[in-house]
């Protein structure tokens, strides 16, 4: 019994002395969020919507013209029936009117299709405006870190360095790489659990090869800063 107790005590001592390298570490790094808006696609959709809108108005104008023309011809027809001898012209005009009306009806049928397409295009535009897309990869230049992605998302989180105040990132979307350069300053902070953390403030986009971007105006600290880039 005594031996068992001694072995147990020794065992406790051994496991209590087991060094634990990760026991006193916290997993944290400053990050910011990026949103990428495909402005070209939005422009294409806007163009399509404009064309559809123009066609709608043209169609309405054509229908109105045809109605006026038909009314006029009916008046002429009545005049002819009351004594005129323009029967052959009347027949030609009636055929022409019927032809135009047929075209107009076809246009109306097509327009019914555009009534369905327009909301879909608007929905697609709204979806693009949220930033939903698939990024091929994000590379932190100067390091060997490349993050590849399989799924679409609206925001993309990138880490900032503990020890630097400048980072370059290469963002590849649909096979096209674009550059983002960020500047910031790091500081230490003690959180509520008394973890000492490295955070970043004054985060700004220095340069980028994206078409345009919305820079951070105030409270530009990690975890809260979101940059939107347009391409």
């Amino acid at each position: 019994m005594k031996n068992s107790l001694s072995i147990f005590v020794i065992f406790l001592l051994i496991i209590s002395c087991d060094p634990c390298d990760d026991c006193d570490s916290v997993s944290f790094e400053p990050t910011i969020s990026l949103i990428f808006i495909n402005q070209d696609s939005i422009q294409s959709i806007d163009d399509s919507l404009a064309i559809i809108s123009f066609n709608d108005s043209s169609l309405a104008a054509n229908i109105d013209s045809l109605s006026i023309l038909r009314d006029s011809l009916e008046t002429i027809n009545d005049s002819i029936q009351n004594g005129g001898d323009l029967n052959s012209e009347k027949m030609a005009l009636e055929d022409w009117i019927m032809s135009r009306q047929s075209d107009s009806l076809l246009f109306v049928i097509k327009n019914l299709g555009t009534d369905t397409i327009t909301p879909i295009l608007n929905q697609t535009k709204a979806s693009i405006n949220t930033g939903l897309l698939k990024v091929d990869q994000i590379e932190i230049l100067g390091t060997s870190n490349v993050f590849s992605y399989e799924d679409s998302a609206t925001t993309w989180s990138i880490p900032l360095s503990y020890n630097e105040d400048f980072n370059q990132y290469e963002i590849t979307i649909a096979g096209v790489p674009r550059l983002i350069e960020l500047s910031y300053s790091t500081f230490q902070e003690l959180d509520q659990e008394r973890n000492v953390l490295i955070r970043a403030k004054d985060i700004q986009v220095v340069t980028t090869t994206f078409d345009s971007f919305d820079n951070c105006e105030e409270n530009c600290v990690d975890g809260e800063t979101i940059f939107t880039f347009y391409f």
Partner: protein
Amino acid sequence: MVKPYLLFIFSLSLSTLSFAQTEQVDSLASTRSVTTSLYIDYGKLLTIPTNIETKYEGGLELLFIEKFPLIIEVGQAILTPEGAYSNGTYESEGTYFRVGTGYFNQFTAKNNIGISFRYASSTFSENGRIFISSPSESQEDYVQNIKREDLTANWFEIVLNTDMRLLKDSDLFRLGLKLRFRMLANYDEQTPIDVYSIPGYGRSFDKTIPAANFFLKVTF
């Protein structure tokens, strides 16, 4: 709202003064003009086997006409509290002293009781090591050493003490208890991560701290 320990100290103070006024003491003929005592805090010696802290503390007491003490206490501490940095190691090491005076009186034939005040000062250093790992694994773990030397802190104390004679016919050895109420006056604040433990006082963000000491006194 008054904290319970403040009520306790206040009531003990009143009791001390009350007993001091009502108890009969030896005749003036036997009163010693100066009584010299040395004492050690044996409670702190119990911290030596632990890995949380190591403390030594003792004091010199000159008791004039068996009523009015002049007290000098000195101590040394190595503090390694678990909660200083959750993601790192921490050690505060330093020395401190307290000087003060007060009023003592005999409570019973074997017991003394007293109230006194202290000014205290600590000189210490802090050493630590911070560990942060990268969740994205995009960079090396962050490790930083914290080393601060020659820090100082000052505070005041109200001390209620009582002791009892260990030997039947001798005042040579006495065992006692000191109840302290510490009030931090100032310390060398640090940014962005402030001082955590002050040897002799306690945690820097506690502006008032109650404490208790068990001591063994040798009276000459």
